[in-house]
């Protein structure tokens, strides 16, 4: 059932990525015209000094009848003013550009983050978390870094290129053509290099993702690594990921060097061609010696931004590779979609009152062609019933829970919520906001955030006070446990709740679901690590508290089944038995077998070896 996000199309052109990206970053376009205008002004400063040099030499110092110092003074002062104004324009442009790009990138980061949460549970499990984190951190950072210098430099270089071309044309159109022809092969080469760079930098970004996944594994699995003395093996795995990144980065560098070398070579070619063509054009009487000398000087105005641009193209491909990975996240269609955003007009609200569950010929498989985890399930669970779902590991119990809470959608059939009296509503038409406020599931590993116990409980119902949280624990019969904590409900739980034991984490997770006050509560092995006495106390309290609501409980400990109104026995994707404990325990079948085995294990009788 490992589902990964579609591999990015590495051959996608930079322009297409940019267009795709701009669509995702509306903030970027805001105020762009003025920024571009400032960039055009900024290019003036780049050309003014070479022109000043040429003017001072030709018309100032070389003026007829000795140096014209007044002229020189005016030209220099005028140009100095332009240089200063240019600096101011660049400053203004930088400010605007940094502000808009950082705002746009922060928006992109947040949208990508949100989208990861919108992807289905299947997606989230399939993709490596370390790698997902890299998409909202280092991939975006790469873009930001590029924007902080490459974006500016790219804009200015482009403007400078245009200005230089115009100025060259003014001096000599023939020589300009010579220069342009020399740069045509470079244009072709750059296109080829850009495509190649896109590939190699794509690999680099991917390797960073893998690297983070490997590091994350070693940190999260720290106790397993230590318990099994596999530090060296883990280090080797990380080092291998580090090496793969290193090799990818050096490969990319090799291609990048190719870009600079081509630019350099084109510039030399242009210079050589200018000398030869210039001399012959001069001899033919088309240009003067002064023009040619001036042109040899001018061509550096053209060459410099080309070289800068090749640098920018290189960095841009690196940034684009990260960009693509972020956009790919955003472009991954969540396979479980919130109808409130997907099809607002057909969105419905859940009927008022307690909710029942109806499976209408539901089939689910984790991947096409795989064995059905649930096969053509057709049943109704009436509202207000307490239902236990039992079965062996891998029989499809958890799949059942995930379908009821719409963590996944069935491959065939429909899941409906409601009642015969209030009507049945297909789950897929219910907005997530409505669904999540009425239907709550407590999974086996109820993740806790690095905050206090109270904060974690409040996660189920924002805004309640610490006293309310304490009352909730009281309701659940857990006061003894809470008061035994160093700071009561204000005790910090550590990252992932690791300052608490697994059983204690489950207690907090149940309290969290309890304060959410759902109409349909799904408990999937929610108290599997809690000691039996506490569990009994807790479930008895829950029974009273959730009376009048529907509860679905999945548990290996069949004490839950004993107390349930009804038991669904699942085996190999089918509901094989259904009834109360009293009915089923006396009937020869899966339940009687499971129950006998559980009785023996909880009562201390060894099971006969099968």
């Amino acid at each position: 059932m490992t589902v990964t996000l579609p591999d990015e199309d590495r051959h996608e052109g930079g322009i297409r990525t940019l267009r795709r990206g701009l669509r995702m970053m509306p903030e970027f376009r805001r105020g762009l015209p003025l920024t571009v205008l400032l960039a055009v002004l900024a290019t003036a400063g780049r050309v003014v000094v070479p022109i000043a040099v040429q003017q001072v030499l030709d018309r100032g110092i070389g003026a007829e009848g000795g140096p014209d110092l007044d002229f020189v003074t005016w030209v220099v002062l005028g140009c100095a003013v332009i240089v200063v104004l240019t600096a101011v324009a660049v400053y203004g442009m930088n400010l605007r550009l940094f502000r808009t790009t950082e705002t746009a990138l922060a928006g992109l980061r947040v949208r990508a983050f949100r989208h990861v949460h919108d992807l289905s549970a299947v997606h989230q499990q399939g993709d490596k978390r370390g790698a997902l984190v890299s998409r909202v951190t280092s991939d975006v950072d790469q873009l930001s870094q590029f924007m902080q210098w490459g974006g500016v430099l790219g804009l200015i270089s482009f403007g400078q290129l245009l200005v230089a071309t115009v100025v060259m044309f003014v001096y000599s159109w023939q020589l300009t053509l010579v220069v342009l022809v020399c740069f045509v092969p470079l244009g072709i080469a750059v296109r080829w290099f850009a495509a190649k760079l896109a590939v190699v930098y794509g690999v680099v970004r991917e390797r960073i993702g893998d690297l983070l996944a490997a590091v994350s594994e070693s940190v999260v699995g720290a106790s397993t690594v230590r318990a099994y003395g596999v530090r060296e093996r883990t280090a080797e795995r990380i080092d291998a990921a580090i090496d793969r990144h290193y090799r990818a980065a050096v490969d990319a560098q090799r291609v990048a060097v190719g870009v600079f070398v081509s630019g350099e070579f084109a510039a030399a070619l242009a210079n050589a061609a200018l000398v030869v063509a210039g001399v012959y054009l001069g001899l033919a009487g088309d240009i003067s010696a002064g023009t040619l000398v001036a042109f040899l000087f001018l061509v550096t105005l053209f060459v410099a931004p080309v070289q800068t641009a090749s640098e920018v193209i290189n960095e841009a491909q690196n940034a684009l590779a990260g960009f693509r990975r972020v956009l790919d996240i955003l472009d991954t269609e969540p396979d479980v979609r919130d109808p409130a955003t997907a099809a607002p007009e057909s969105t419905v609200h859940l009927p008022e009152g307690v909710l029942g569950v109806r499976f209408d010929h539901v089939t689910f498989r984790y991947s096409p062609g795989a064995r059905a985890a649930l096969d053509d399930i057709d049943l109704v669970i009436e509202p207000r019933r307490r239902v236990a779902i039992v079965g062996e590991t891998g029989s499809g119990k958890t799949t059942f829970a995930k379908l009821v809470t719409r963590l996944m959608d069935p491959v065939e059939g429909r899941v409906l919520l409601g009642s015969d009296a209030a009507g049945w509503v297909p789950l897929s038409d219910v907005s997530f906001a409505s669904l999540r406020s009425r239907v709550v599931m407590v999974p086996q590993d109820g993740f806790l955030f690095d905050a206090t116990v109270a904060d974690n409980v409040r996660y189920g119902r924002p805004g309640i006070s610490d006293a309310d949280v304490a009352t909730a624990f009281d309701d659940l019969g857990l006061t003894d446990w809470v008061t035994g904590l160093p700071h009561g409900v204000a005790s910090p739980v550590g990252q992932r709740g690791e300052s608490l034991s697994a059983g204690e984490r489950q207690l907090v997770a149940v309290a969290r679901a309890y304060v959410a006050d759902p109409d349909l509560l799904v408990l999937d092995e929610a108290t599997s690590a809690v000691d039996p006495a506490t569990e009994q106390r807790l479930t008895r309290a829950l029974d009273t508290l959730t009376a009048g609501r529907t509860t679905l409980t999945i548990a290996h400990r069949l004490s839950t089944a004993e107390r349930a109104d009804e038991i669904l026995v699942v085996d190999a994707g089918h509901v094989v038995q259904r009834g109360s404990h009293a009915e089923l325990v006396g009937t020869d079948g899966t339940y009687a077998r499971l129950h006998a085995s559980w009785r023996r294990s909880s009562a201390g009788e060894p099971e006969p070896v099968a």
Partner: protein
Amino acid sequence: MPRRRRDAVVRRGIRHVGRAIALQPKIFSAALLGSSLFAVMTVASAYVIGEITDRVVLPSFDQGSASTAALALAVAAIIGVALLRIVGIIGRRLLSGIMQYRLQAQMRREVTGQYLRLPLSWHQQHPTGQLLSNANSDVEAAWFFVAPLAFGLGAVVIILITGGAMVVTDPLLALIGLVVFPLVFVINALYSQVMSPRQQRAQQLRAEVSEIAHESFDAALVVKTLGREESETERFNARAGELRDGLIAVGRVRGLFDPLIESLPNLGTLAVLLLGAHRVADGAIDVGELVSIAYLFTLLALPIRAIGWVLAELPRALAGYDRITPVLEATGETPYGPEDAATTAGGAALGLQGIGYTFAGVERPAVRDVTFDVPAGGTVAVVGPTGSGKSTLAGLLVRLVDPVDGTVLLDGLDIRRLREGQVSDHAAFVAQQAFLFDDTVRGNITLGGPYTDEDVWAALRVAAADDFVTALPDGLDTHVGERGASLSGGQRQRLALARAIVRRPRLLVLDDATSAVDPSVEARILDALRASDAPATVVVVAYRQATIALADEVVWFEHGRAVARGSHAYLLGEVPGYADLVRAYSQADGVPA
């Protein structure tokens, strides 16, 4: 203190550059050589164009005819210099890149090596997101300046050449250079000081953003089931917004610095023109000399910018490096002794003497003054209410953490005196929550150890995992996904059990390791463990009576203390709390007897 640190930014920056060079001296020298070649050839190309103008272009125009040989020579000179420049570029670029990535890789190995070396107590205090950020963006930041470093230092060559040329041509005009260059460095120093705290803050925020993302994606299921996507996004958005503001603050300084440093050589060139015109008028220098000085000055623009690039990256580099240093310098590495554990077959004798453990930042100990022995081959069940410290105790037995007080003895030896690897060679631990690596089923069980497929299958059979592994698409070669995501909780737990079983440990510690396994399967596992011919010493944290029944002795745990010990029957009679706990299911109301 902050003031002193700010003063030190430039000095520390230079030391940091020295560190990079000291770590990769050979490759740096080669890159610098390439960069110097590039620098010299840059000046040479200007000289070549000047010579060609004087000796080829102008004579051709004067004579009205061109010498093919002269033109060919000119072309050869231009291309030749360009080729040498290209060699310089390749050397500088490629080698700088390799140097940068080597430094990164080396530091990443050191940082992640520390993650593996440092004790769990250290990990408990450092969020995963922060650690990821240290290994990723902080390392990257620390060595990012290396890319333009050789270029920047090569630029010094250009500055020296041009400076020398200017002084020789006209000392008065060279004065302008003497004003401009120091100014560049003063601006850079100011810039570093203003930038440094901003970069530190940005780097810190990067780590915090990574931390939230990591935690939130880890919590994906809870976020989804409680419908809290909106508030999680809000939480991320708040920090991403701070990072955005931090980066804009960085950009504001950089946005001012860049045009400032760029206009300096331009203004210098204009000053040269103005002063030079007067000098020419005075007859102190001739036009040609002014032209070459003006030209040399324009050549300076690029190297000065390259030096600026290096200096501009230094505050960020320091910010990254400063965040990594505490990881690299963190101590608390688990100390190992010289001893080997006994090599006898069969179970190991376990002794606990006055064990106490307290988590960092918590006053109350999690485990207090625990003393008991488990004879070789014996089985002890540790039973107690949720949160009484059983898991902490289990971790102490296999030296996941060291006790604050007391000693754990393995065959009479303090386990702290054992060589590294000895404890895990003799003892296996199965945690409450099974952790699987992103590897194959086989890899997760052998963990690289010398076990044959038969060994693995045998262990899988004991753990009752052979059926589902056989049904997996690639059997033992099936990849289980990150943290075993493609398997159910019960399946993960059974693989974790098989991982312990395959090692035939002399001490097996099971921390409620069968909670997600069906009772019938658990019974099979326990049967198989008992049937072994060389029974291991077993310490099992358990709630089920069937598991407890296997134990020779039961230790009753409450509030971190071993309150009572004895046989199951004894405790049932003497300890009311124990009876309540283990009989909870039989006492449940409404249950037919």
